[in-house]
């Protein structure tokens, strides 16, 4: 589940964000408690709590005192717009860099995108 490439709490936050984006976790749905999460994934509860706190700070989750943590109603929209903003920097620009490195003309890339676009609208 987790690897050593980034802090564990960061990976926990990302995993929950992915669940919200995919729809596995819906708006106002309760998420696992940090303790349940810690026991399930065999990690220290303080580490799990740090990941959840990050999501609360970002407004992705909200707390209800004595009950637990829930998905913010606008979390999915917020995450979608964040991912959309990052899309060009994270996906498109590396693709163009790679195309340059291996000698694929950008016109070929554009042509391929046009083909895929044509198929989609067909």
């Amino acid at each position, binding site marked *: 589940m987790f690897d050593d490439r980034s*802090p564990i*709490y960061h990976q926990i936050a990302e995993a929950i964000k992915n669940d919200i984006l995919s729809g596995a976790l819906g708006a106002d749905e309760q998420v696992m408690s940090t303790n349940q999460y810690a*026991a399930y994934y065999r990690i*220290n509860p303080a*580490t799990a709590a740090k990941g959840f706190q990050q999501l609360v700070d970002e407004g992705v989750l909200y707390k209800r005192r004595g009950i637990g943590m829930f998905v913010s109603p606008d979390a999915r929209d917020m995450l979608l717009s964040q991912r959309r903003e990052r899309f060009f920097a994270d996906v498109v620009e590396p693709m163009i860099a790679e195309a340059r490195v291996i000698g694929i003309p950008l016109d070929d890339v554009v042509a391929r995108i046009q083909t895929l676009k044509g198929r989609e609208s067909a």
Partner: protein
Amino acid sequence: MTLGIEIENLTVRYPGVTAIDDLTLKLEGGKIYGLLGRNGSGKTTLLSLIAAFRRVTEGAILVDGEAPFENERLTQQICLVRESGDIVVDGDSVKGILRRSRRFRPHWDDEFAHRLLDLFQLPLNRGVAKLSRGQKSALGITVGLASRAPLTMLDEAYLGMDAPSRYAFYDVLLEDYIENPRTIILSTHLIEEVARLFEEVVIIDRGRLVAHDDTESLRMRGAAVVGPAAAVDDFTTGMTVLGEQRLGGTKSVTVYGEIDPDARAVAADWGLELSPVALQDLFVHLTKGDRA
């Protein structure tokens, strides 16, 4: 209830060797601590002193503000299970050991003890002398956890246990810590297996404190730098290199030391990827000396 520990300028000398060398350490308590050190680094000596198995002669140890040696109030609250399994006496039976623990341990949970015996498949009526090495360890762990001591220390307690039993131990430890928070110190050299259980890590080497930090911060003290070989080489010039790997034109170099935001910006600019390092790698680096 949890117990904090304060250690100041602790020194222990054996003939010809300094086992603990001017060690100062403060653990606030209520956490799972990993105590890491190579064989002979002083882990067992340190834990034995905290558990009042031995008298402090130089420096001081305070547990919950008091010296633990010959302090009955404290010793009831402290449980140390050593890998030698000395909590487990050969002339006794499993049942007998539970009975003695129940009498001495004010927070003892008998139901939990029996659940652990089932988990580790330990027969209640068996004599301790007839248990395997792994079963003796499992019995030590059973006593250690069921004591629910506010300060629980497990020193390489898994010796001889196979991987499924060890993972069962980690799971039950975490589950019980969540339900009954207390100060737990685990000494181990199987770092990868348990690194994620630790909130804080203490590394000692040759009796000295080498590092004490929360696990994630410690991991952030090192970084793996990955990218085009030439750029990685340029970037890591002058840094403490722990190791390197090369695959075609891509290189991964593991470095130790803080990488400041400016350097991080440079790395991003050069198309280099920075990521934290496995605790095991840092441990090996911080404790490698020129001894056999």
